[in-house]
């Protein structure tokens, strides 16, 4: 909760009264508020007084260790820089030998209860808890052991995190940390913190390292407040008007040692990434690849005339010159990082194909059983062309349109392919004794095609290619509950005439029966791949079913209908039907080998079996841009020169956080450090102490960063704490 006002309650508690004192106050103006505070005298008095009693007791594996077996010293180390609290104590007795007891070297629960206070006013509290780390046993008639322990964080010190948080999940830093801890069965007491908008991949980071780095922008430090609860707290210096947590004068401390700031960087460069707002509309990126070289467009040297004669034109392909041979343009439309549309256009030198023969119906022509010669240019290789030479034209275009669902997973792709293509066309009706179809054209591939640009037909030229839609491919993905692809459907549409018996509908020049005179644009092939998934969504196999135009054939001419290309069938016309199905299974043999069974055929392969396609994460579509924050420290530059410190902090998500982190790092680096030895008191790392030493002029608030307590009971009780205090400049 933010502090909106501070108040100081003062009062005096009668010394004879050992009960808690109570202070009350109320805010008079503004909305009504009452302040209420309880002062527990024993907490204060157990650490102040000219003569105090101390002791500690140890509970190991839920068993109190008898005082006769317990040796000092009890030592304890705490710091704001680590979650780990380390402590140790001594034991003596044969039953604690490492041979006799595993409690002293295995992860055994341990509690240290401290007792302190003036005679007659003792207070007992749980000073440290956790688990045994190991022990150090010394030889002797009775073993003497120093048992080292740590707080519960040691149980999780080797945990590696495996978690992802997508961009824009709306989770705060606190919620993310709480989730990660809850996965490990740890309760948490963590403030909400800022919403973490970037994506997060923990990438096998160790738990405490990750939390320390992830919480740094919030200035979070970590500690266990009980056996199963982790708390994030801020360790910042309290400034006026807030009171400090304690005031230490020379009457409270044994010694103060001070060290000046040591060499500190003059320039902090903090590197991270920030999320870039991708809502700036569609971005279009065009990439153009030009291929240049020595090239001459091909010129047709000969021409076929309408009477079938070949005339040499007396021209030939010219001298090659350095020029553009082809151009490819890729136009990519993106929204954030999502590609919404891609067009690839190809340009080059091309001369469309032309027909060598043409059918004009009756009267029947002079060629073969009624064809006429078409006019065409002939390339040096004999190919029939519609023009005298190659010209600069568009040669291809592929348009890809993906479709995404709400999570950003690509669920389908629609691909249109444009190129110079022909459309099959029959030259005669079935049973016609002459080419009966008007303006069908026969190419040099001995197939008949539709004629384009009918304006040229009067000149006898039949262009059988046109730049246009040649093929459409639709690929659809279906995903299962586990996120893996369960089915892929691949559909191909093209210009296709179903085949039929030669006596039924139409005939191509090649003699093949056609169900339609001109091939329509239609769905010609569908391949459905069903993935067989294991329980953990890995690929166990596939069933691939292919559907297309086909009909059951009969050998040779035994079928009722002859199809004109050596095949026959009892079916008159091809229909769209299932043609083929193939089952593939994958069996893992060992780590490096798997077995692939295709329709029962066995094949041993190296590596791992293929994996299914998986649903995408939404955050893969967001853009992160590098972020660099610079903090100059002119004072450090003047004192020690200009050293630069580069901090990689990937969890900083904007400039404000970056500057705060750099400032805090600088504050910790440029400070006077006091090492104070004093009797144990209630101050803990993270608190603020006003340190007073008139001898050296110290009268500053300092942040307590480390604490080391030593409780020695014999030969003389000596209970001292060594605090490290940082006084920022």
């Amino acid at each position, binding site marked *: 909760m933010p502090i909106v006002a501070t108040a100081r309650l003062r009062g005096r508690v009668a010394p004879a009264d050992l009960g808690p004192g109570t202070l009350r106050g109320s805010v008079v103006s503004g909305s009504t508020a009452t302040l209420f505070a309880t002062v527990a005298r024993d907490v204060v008095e157990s650490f102040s007084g000219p*003569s105090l009693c101390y002791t500690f007791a140890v509970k190991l594996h839920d068993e109190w260790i008898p005082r006769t077996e317990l040796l000092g010293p009890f030592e304890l180390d705490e710091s704001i820089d680590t979650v780990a609290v380390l402590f140790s104590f001594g034991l003596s007795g044969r039953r604690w030998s490492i041979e006799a007891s595993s409690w002293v070297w295995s992860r055994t629960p341990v509690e240290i209860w401290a007792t302190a206070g003036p005679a*007659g006013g*003792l207070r007992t509290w749980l000073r440290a808890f956790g688990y045994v780390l190991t022990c150090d046993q010394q030889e002797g008639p009775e073993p003497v052991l120093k048992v080292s322990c740590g707080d519960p964080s040691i149980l999780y010190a080797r945990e590696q995190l495996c978690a992802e948080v997508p961009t824009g999940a709306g989770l705060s830093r606190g919620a993310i940390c709480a989730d990660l801890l809850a996965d490990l069965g740890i309760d948490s007491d963590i403030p909400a913190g800022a919403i973490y908008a970037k994506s997060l991949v923990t990438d096998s980071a160790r738990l405490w390292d990750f939390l320390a780095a992830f919480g740094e922008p919030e200035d979070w430090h970590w500690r266990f407040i009980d056996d199963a609860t982790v708390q994030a707290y801020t360790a910042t210096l309290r400034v006026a008007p807030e009171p400090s947590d304690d005031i230490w004068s020379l009457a409270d401390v044994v010694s103060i040692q001070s060290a000046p700031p040591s060499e500190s960087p003059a320039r902090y460069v903090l590197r991270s990434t920030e999320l870039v707002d991708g809502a700036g509309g569609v971005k279009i990126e065009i990439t153009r690849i030009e291929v240049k070289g020595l090239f001459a467009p091909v010129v047709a040297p000969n021409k076929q005339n309408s009477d079938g004669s070949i005339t040499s034109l007396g021209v030939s392909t010219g001298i090659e010159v350095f020029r553009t041979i082809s151009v490819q343009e890729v136009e990519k439309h993106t929204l954030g990082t999502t590609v919404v549309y891609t067009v690839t256009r190809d340009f080059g030198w091309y001369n469309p194909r032309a027909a060598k023969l043409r059918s004009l119906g009756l009267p029947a022509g002079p060629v073969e059983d009624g064809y006429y010669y078409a006019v065409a240019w002939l390339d040096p290789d004999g190919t029939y062309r519609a023009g005298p030479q190659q010209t600069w034209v568009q040669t291809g275009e592929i348009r890809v349109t993906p479709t995404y669902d709400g999570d950003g997973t690509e669920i389908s792709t629609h691909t249109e392919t444009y190129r110079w293509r022909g459309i099959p066309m029959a030259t005669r009706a079935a049973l016609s004794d002459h080419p009966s179809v008007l303006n069908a054209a026969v190419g040099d591939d001995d197939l008949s095609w539709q004629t384009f640009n009918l304006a040229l037909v009067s000149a006898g030229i039949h262009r059988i290619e046109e730049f246009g839609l040649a093929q459409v491919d639709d690929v659809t993905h279906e995903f299962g509950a586990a996120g893996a692809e369960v089915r892929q459907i691949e559909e191909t549409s093209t210009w296709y005439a179903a085949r039929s018996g030669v006596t039924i509908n139409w005939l191509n020049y090649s003699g093949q029966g056609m169900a339609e005179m001109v091939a329509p644009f239609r769905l010609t092939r569908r391949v459905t791949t069903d993935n067989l998934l294991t329980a953990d969504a890995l690929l166990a196999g596939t069933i691939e079913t292919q559907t297309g135009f086909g009909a059951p054939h009969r050998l040779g001419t035994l079928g009722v209908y002859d199809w004109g290309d050596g095949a026959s069938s009892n079916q008159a016309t091809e229909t769209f039907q299932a043609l083929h199905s193939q089952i593939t299974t994958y069996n893992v043999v060992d780590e490096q080998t798997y077995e692939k069974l295709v329709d029962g055929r066995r094949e041993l392969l190296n590596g791992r079996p293929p994996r299914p396609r998986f649903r995408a994460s939404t955050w893969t579509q967001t853009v992160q841009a590098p972020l660099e924050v610079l903090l100059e420290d002119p004072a450090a530059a003047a004192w020690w020169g200009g050293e630069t410190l580069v901090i990689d902090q990937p969890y900083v998500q904007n400039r404000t956080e970056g500057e705060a982190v750099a400032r805090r790092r600088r504050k910790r680096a440029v400070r006077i450090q006091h090492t104070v030895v004093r009797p144990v008191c209630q101050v803990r790392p993270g608190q603020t102490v006003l340190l007073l030493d008139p001898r050296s002029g110290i009268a500053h608030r300092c942040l307590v960063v480390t604490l080391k307590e030593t409780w020695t009971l014999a030969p*003389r*009780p*000596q209970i001292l704490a060594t605090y490290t205090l940082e006084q920022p400049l």
Partner: protein
Amino acid sequence: MSFALLTSGVPAPPTLDGLHLNGIAADSLEVIERELVGTIALAAGGTREQRLAPDPGQPVIRRWYQVTLDYRHLADLAPAVEARFAFPGPHLLALWKHVCLGWLGDASRAEFALPWRLAPHLLTPAGGAPPERFAPVIRLEFDGDPLTLVERDTSDYNAGSPAVGEVWVERGGQRLKLESPPAAGARLIAHVVPLFRCVVAAEDVARQYRDPVREPRKIVLLEAA
């Protein structure tokens, strides 16, 4: 003071493991009291005292005793003394001297613990000294009158409860109880004659024979845990 320290002037020699060391002359009877206290000097010049916290019901200050009995000649007692030291401790030693203990009341505890069993409960002093002179004297506050002493066997002690102004001491045990808990901070003071459980000190090694007649023996005993 409303009572004399009752053992002063009473000639009762020490008793070791039931043997009255009677009729032999000790050069000295030295008692060293050890208390675990630490002091630390603060930077301002003052000192803080650091003690071991007592367990609940235990006296505020627990001192540990080291006794040196330096005999020039054990005489007839030599065989009996050596026989006792032929075995390891703990040896039971009564010096027949009062030791003073203090407790602080906390308004809830009426029963307190003694660190030792009491010598008069288990032994009869030598030389015909009157046993009642060695009985505990227990009172509240420095100048309070001694409470009426009632010594009970364990079963009676457990079953009953003291009347107002009484203090019950467990005979042969280490407990005493009052009728009601002393107020918080009230001082309970007891003078008792303890029966120490001791072990032989590590320093008890040398023996110096000055002549063939005398049997010198320096006995150094430490209170055992």
